[in-house]
């Protein structure tokens, strides 16, 4: 059976009055720049041009682009999440946040259902940066671009299913889709569409498979490193999620479902995405590249570098929505199992 992902967000636990960010939202690039110049200088710039000014980004001592070279300036430390609760799971198997062979010491959260030892340093890092919050531009822009363009489309194929409600051993493969979404008149993705796998010479460009099980209709994968395609803010990322686990309900009546992806996300992978955004973004959408860069390294809690001991990944949780879909395999791709092949398919569902 197949699914196509229709919405993908960094899972953020947001309260109405932003209690999780006691110091308020993190300041943006312009605010930081303004604090470094005199009021006279400030007045010399026309208001409407401020967000357009390239040199706001080029505020390094020698005119360097501070997103390209985040260490040339020292911005005020990033305001990070101080709240108690978060989405996520205990990824390192240690509830008190102390260092383990696979993690650096970090503060843990309590899960929304009271679970202890929830690891989500990605949330701690970005939860107070308004551009990443649910009303911010970054993720909404990425989702809306994906919705209209079909770029970075994530296809999930679950094979080896004997019993859709309870099955000890199934496997899940992640593909990138090709083409556009099938949308209804309100721009919602319709379930039960047929989607093609993006492939080159018959070989899917994305093809990572992970085992898993189904418990009472909920699919839970084993832990594995997988590549999941991503597109947003004009960039493709061949997104690697380490020690990934996926949880989702696969038995929705109307073909619409959702779930969570947990795992470690590389600091370099994240920063490469931040750096690659349009020059105007840090000003327009209020974030500081140097502050994020520094904080990301400080907060990294996974995959210690064997040489330096410094951690290189951030524990993370992603929330996604998906609809049932039929997955068309490229000609010659025999790797897939289950339900594909000739167009003769039962009308009861994918």
């Amino acid at each position, binding site marked *: 059976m197949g699914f196509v992902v229709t919405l993908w967000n960094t899972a953020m636990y947001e309260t109405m009055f932003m209690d999780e960010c006691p110091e308020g939202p993190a300041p943006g690039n312009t605010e930081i720049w303004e604090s470094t110049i005199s009021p006279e200088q400030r007045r010399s710039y026309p208001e409407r041009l401020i967000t357009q000014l390239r040199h706001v980004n080029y505020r390094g001592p020698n005119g360097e682009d501070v997103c390209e070279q985040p260490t040339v300036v020292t911005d005020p430390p990033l305001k990070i999440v101080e709240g108690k609760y978060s989405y996520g799971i205990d990824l390192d198997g240690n509830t008190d946040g102390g260092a383990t062979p696979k993690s650096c010491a970090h503060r843990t959260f309590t899960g929304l259902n009271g679970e202890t030892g929830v690891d989500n340093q990605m949330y701690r890092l970005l939860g107070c940066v308004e551009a990443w919050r649910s009303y911010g531009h970054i993720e909404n822009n990425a989702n809306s671009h994906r919705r209209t363009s079909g770029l970075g489309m994530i296809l999930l194929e679950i094979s080896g299913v004997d019993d859709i409600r309870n099955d000890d051993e199934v496997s899940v493969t992640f593909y990138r889709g090709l083409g556009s979404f099938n949308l*209804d008149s309100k721009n919602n993705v319709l379930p039960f569409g*047929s989607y093609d796998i993006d492939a080159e010479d018959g070989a899917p460009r994305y093809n990572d498979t992970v085992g898993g099980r189904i418990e009472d209709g909920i699919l839970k994968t084993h832990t594995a490193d997988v590549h999941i395609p991503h597109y947003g803010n004009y960039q493709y990322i061949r997104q690697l999620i380490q020690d990934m686990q996926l949880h989702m309900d696969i038995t929705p009546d109307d073909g619409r479902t959702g779930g969570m992806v947990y795992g470690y996300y590389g600091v370099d992978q994240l920063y490469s995405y931040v750096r690659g955004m349009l020059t105007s973004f840090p000003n327009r959408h209020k974030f500081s590249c140097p502050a994020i860069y520094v904080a990301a390294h400080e907060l990294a809690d996974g995959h210690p570098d064997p040489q330096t001991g410094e951690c290189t990944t951030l524990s993370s949780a992603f929330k996604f929505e998906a609809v049932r879909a039929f997955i068309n395999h490229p000609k010659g791709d025999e790797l897939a199992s289950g339900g594909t092949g000739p167009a003769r398919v039962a009308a009861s569902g994918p």
Partner: protein
Amino acid sequence: MKRHKSLHRGFLSALLAPLSALLLSACEPAEPVVSGTPPDISRLTEDQYRNVIGDVFGSAIVVGGRFDTPVRTHGLLAVGARNATVTSGSMRQYDEMARSIASQVLSEPNRRFLVPCALKPDMAFDETCATQLITDAGRLLFRRPLTDEEIKSRVTVMRDTAKALGHFEDGLHLGLTSLLVAPQFLFVTESVEPDPAAPGSVRLDGYSVASRLSFLLWNTVPDDALLTAAENGALHTQDGLTSQVTRMMASPRLETGVRAFFADMYEFDAFDFLEKDTVIYPAFGVAAAQDAQEQTLRTIVDHVINLDADYRDLFTTRKTFMTRTLGQVYRVQVEAPKGVWQPFEFEETDPRVGIQSQLGFLALHSHPGRSSPTLRGKAIRTTLLCQQVPDPPPDVDFTEFNDPNSPNKTARQRLTAHSTSPACAGCHRITDPIGLALETFDGAGQSRSAENGEVIDTSGSLDGIAFDDASGLGPALRDNPAATTCLVNRLYAYASGKSLSPRDPLMAYLEERFAAEGFRVKELLKRIATSDALYAVTAPDTAALETAAVSPAPF
């Protein structure tokens, strides 16, 4: 029209008739003799108008405009078109379309193919060019050569216009417009001539025969070869007629003709105003509606033309065609790229069999936001079986149907409660047991197993044949004798404008032949197209002409 072998009241034919009947009876019964009716006139339907313009001027010409729909008569718009006229509002539309088509014909690059001379900005009036354009286009549009007078009057107006407006092109524009608003174009008028085989009788002239043939088989005007056959008298011989019918039935245009007939018989014009609530049925949008109609037409064309299969199997076939848009509504996998059709076959276990279980039928005969066993049952009775279903009484009380507190969760339960009233029960008995078998398909035709949480019971019956679900309804429909009688009646009415009564010997003959030839629509079509009955005419009743001609115009 009577051809050489045919039976006729004429002297020579009367002598030969017993002989030819004898010769034929060895293999098959002879066609019964029918008495003719006066020739008819028929307004071009929208499809015919569009086909003609495409065929005469090329498919690049855009026909933008609104057409009045004829009143459906004997179940067919094509029969209604024989009573259709041109109202003042639609005349404005025809005038606008004519001018727009003329402009397109005279614009680049079309003019290079369609205008018989090279147009230059300040050229003088070129009488040869103007005459030829009118003669050539006129012959196709009027389906016969124009008379000298028809050409001359037009060329005169064209010359005057070119002079007044300063451009030759303006004259050509006007000439083309004058053809396209002319009654000879907008109405298919038939003419009779003395029948040489039967002195004192008349027959359709060759051009009228050609038009009957081409609108029947192709739903468009005769092509050059057919007009030539009309011109040289070939259509008045059995061989000539048969060879034209054979040629025309081998043409890809036959598909256009077959589509037009079935779209008319199955009332697909209703698709123009089909509405589905996009909140309740998000997958059934405009694109799905278009594809649903096309799917059924493709299924029919493939079945009756390509496979030349038994008509009755259309109600049990699992073979169809699919697009990604439709696949989403049917919830099936489609490998063909977007917008491309792929052959598709529903699985043996799937209750969807026959065109009556395709979206086109199911969605068309439902409400915008829910299914309707009654509408579906009624449509099967009226369009597939040619039976009458009375309308509900004016003060029908249906409150039980919509009571939110009602214990009746499924349509069956609600209809049962409703039908306890004897006034309603009579009609619902003839529709609902058919439609209820299709209840596992919702108002958009999507599969479902429950309604309001209650499992749907799809048992039903058709004229004494009981079935458990839609897969049983198909065979019941297939084996219902009314299904083939209905087709024969409609196809003959489509061809001739006349609805045969069940007791008509011609009806019995056509039905018998249809059965003997394996219920193949192509054979039936060929038989009708080459029959004597189709062309039998009497002289028009022109007696009242004087009064009509002098009656004052209404203003």
